[in-house]
């Protein structure tokens, strides 16, 4: 019975997807807000990636709400699973020589890639959420290769708290300077260069560190098999 209701739901979903896609002309947005933002975002924020301008400048409060949602989820998982910082020697087998060596080689590359995604969030596609997820995956790769190699929960919690505070403090500084919470406030700089777009890269750095620390904490506390 449950299987049939699921299939019914999926059929409806596929019909809706086909109905959305069929009359769509690729590359032309049917919305008017997009045109407005396309016209004025570069002058307002100085970010070359307009998605970043929307996420952090126009809709900064929503991003703060997303951070709150992530924080709630991580807190709930911490309550359920508990934070065992003793790293009791798990009975799960090691992943073997090949995976351990590959993890050692891949870990710095993944770190560089994650920081690239975070720091170039105002220039190229990407940003804090994506880079933070890659960061968490990089740290989880080490845990996967050697299960004794767990991260310190205290360190990730401190990083998470500091990053969340930094996000709000950046918004409050903008409130003190300009009277609007979470408005871009530093010098806009030259369009397309690394040090541009005012305070948006700082916001993305805080966001990426917070997301990465939360996800790494979640994954490593899930990987602690207590048997």
């Amino acid at each position: 019975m449950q299987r049939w209701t699921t299939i019914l739901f999926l059929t409806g979903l596929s019909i809706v997807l086909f109905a959305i896609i069929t009359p769509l002309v690729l590359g032309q947005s049917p919305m008017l807000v997009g045109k407005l933002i396309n016209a004025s975002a570069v002058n307002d924020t100085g970010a070359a990636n307009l998605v970043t301008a929307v996420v952090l400048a126009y809709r900064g409060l929503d991003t703060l709400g997303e951070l709150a949602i992530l924080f709630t989820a991580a807190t709930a998982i911490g309550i359920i699973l508990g934070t065992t910082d003793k790293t009791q020697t798990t009975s799960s087998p090691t992943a073997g020589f090949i995976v351990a060596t590959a993890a050692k080689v891949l870990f710095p590359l993944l770190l560089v890639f994650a920081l690239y995604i975070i720091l170039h969030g105002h220039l190229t596609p990407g940003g804090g959420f994506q880079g933070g997820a890659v960061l968490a995956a990089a740290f989880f790769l080490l845990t996967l290769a050697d299960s004794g190699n767990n991260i310190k929960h205290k360190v990730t919690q401190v990083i998470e708290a500091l990053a969340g505070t930094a996000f709000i403090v950046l918004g409050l500084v903008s409130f003190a300077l300009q009277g609007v919470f979470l408005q871009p406030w530093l010098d806009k700089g030259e369009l397309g260069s690394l040090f541009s777009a005012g305070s948006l890269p700082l916001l993305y750095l805080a966001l990426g560190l917070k997301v990465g620390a939360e996800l790494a904490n979640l994954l490593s506390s899930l990987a602690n098999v207590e048997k």
Partner: protein
Amino acid sequence: MQLIGDIFFLSGTIFLFLGALGLIRMPDVYNRIQAGTKAVTLGSILTLMGIFFYFPQWWGHLCLIILFLLFTNPVSSSALARAFYRNGISVWTKTK
């Protein structure tokens, strides 16, 4: 120039097709992993080399992608095969 690229594309897609065929036709997990890894890795590399003949200015990106493929694909499939072996999946021994 583009003809060489087309030849690379054709051979790459042939290898990718053989890999997909091996995934369906092979009798057990280990044979499937072997077909899926080797043929697909070679097919992807040949396809990327075909892209090089179309857009020669992308050689840096393509070299990086090929290196990454050569590094991660065998490692992940070896981890998969190891996990299957440790979980006691039996080996196909029938010969016809």
